[in-house]
């Protein structure tokens, strides 16, 4: 369990604690301002504006503490990678409807529009009302959201759960994004500046079964191109895949690609060296 879970998990992971999905949380304190910005006319100012300040706030590439603090205390919006089964549990925990909206990291940085952000109910109505120019957003039901999650997992998009601020009353989750490490701005900041509070590693790490893996793909491992974080090495001599737990984010995309069931997700804390590696 990460530190969020220790403080706000109530015995489970923070995003699986029903306590964090209380309706009134979204209308209180820092949660309220983040919810209002993401679900309103300020969305672009909030999301892309935070990105425009990164270079000012990180003069030294080896010091990302200011950015981490700003993300928690000012922006009050951060995320964590979740595997498919947890994403489905999250969808079960919140009541519908869901808003499927464009990905700001892609749209506002010149990429092709991809409708991949699944916002939860408190932002749906205000988003449709305050941002009429976003004609490609659509409201979907819980069943469609589950189908969408499975489709994303199949195509190779990471699932990440994003909260609306950490405060002593809880961490209300607000959106599931489906990104890749090449497009997702917080993930890029994580990888190039080391900003931990943008995109946290998931609660799991992948482990490959050597026997099944050796018997399986032989010369072309199908799981490797699915890894966004460079956590995989393949040895053509051993015909075996090595997963570096220090780099693994626990997204589970390699597992869903493996045709031989050789990869499984284990709890991050089963490796003592990963206890504080989020």
């Amino acid at each position, binding site marked *: 369990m*990460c*530190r*969020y879970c*220790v*403080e*706000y998990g109530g015995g489970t992971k923070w995003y699986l604690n029903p306590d964090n999905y209380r309706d009134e949380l979204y209308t209180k304190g820092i949660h309220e301002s983040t919810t209002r910005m993401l679900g*309103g*006319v*300020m969305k*672009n*100012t909030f999301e*892309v*504006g935070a*990105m*425009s300040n*990164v*270079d000012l706030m*990180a*003069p*030294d*590439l*080896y*010091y*990302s*503490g*200011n950015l*981490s*603090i700003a993300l*928690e*205390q000012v922006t009050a919006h951060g995320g964590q990678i979740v595997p498919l089964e947890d994403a489905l549990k999250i969808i079960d925990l919140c009541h519908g409807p869901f808003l499927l909206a464009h990905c700001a990291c892609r749209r*506002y*940085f*010149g*990429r092709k529009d991809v409708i991949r952000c699944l916002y939860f109910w408190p932002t749906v109505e205000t988003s449709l*009302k*305050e*941002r*009429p*120019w*976003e004609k490609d957003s659509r409201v979907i039901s819980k069943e469609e959201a589950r189908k969408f999650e499975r489709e994303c997992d199949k195509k190779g998009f990471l699932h990440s759960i994003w909260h609306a601020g*950490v*405060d*002593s009353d809880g961490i209300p989750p607000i959106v599931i994004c489906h990104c890749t490490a*090449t497009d997702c*701005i917080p993930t*890029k*900041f994580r990888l*190039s*500046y*080391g900003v*931990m*509070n943008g995109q946290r590693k998931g609660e799991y790490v992948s482990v490959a079964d050597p026997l099944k893996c050796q018997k399986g793909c032989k010369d072309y491992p199908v799981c490797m191109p699915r890894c966004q974080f460079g956590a995989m090495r393949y040895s053509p001599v051993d015909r075996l895949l090595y997963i570096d737990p220090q780099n693994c984010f626990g997204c589970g995309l390699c597992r869903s690609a493996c045709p031989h069931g050789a990869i499984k997700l284990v709890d991050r804390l089963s490796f003592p060296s990963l206890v*504080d590696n*989020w």
Partner: protein
Amino acid sequence: MEYRHITPRPVITVDEAACGNAVLCLKCVKACLDAGPNCIGFINTTPPPVGENAPQRLEDIPHSIIFSGMVNCNGCGKCIDVCPKGALTLQMPEPQAPAARVQHADVVFCGTLRDGTKVFPRD
């Protein structure tokens, strides 16, 4: 917080008056994306109005160009070349001798604890 080291990186500045409404052009954004670094984005200058006067198209909202994650910029200058208005200038960092860097204790595991205590990284 005092910084002991500044990581050199290219700096691009935009002349916003010459650029105008960025969303109508976006040639530099596309050029940077095609070149690889993907450092150039665009943002609305002020939040658009809500209600009856709300804009119906993204193009109706004034946007300006932003630069983000400039450590990934490789200084290729394609954004400068492609700009039809000559609004961008690129400044490459001065060459620096490699310096020893201090790795700060900068990890924030959880900024606010359940009892309301704020936790900040140690310097």
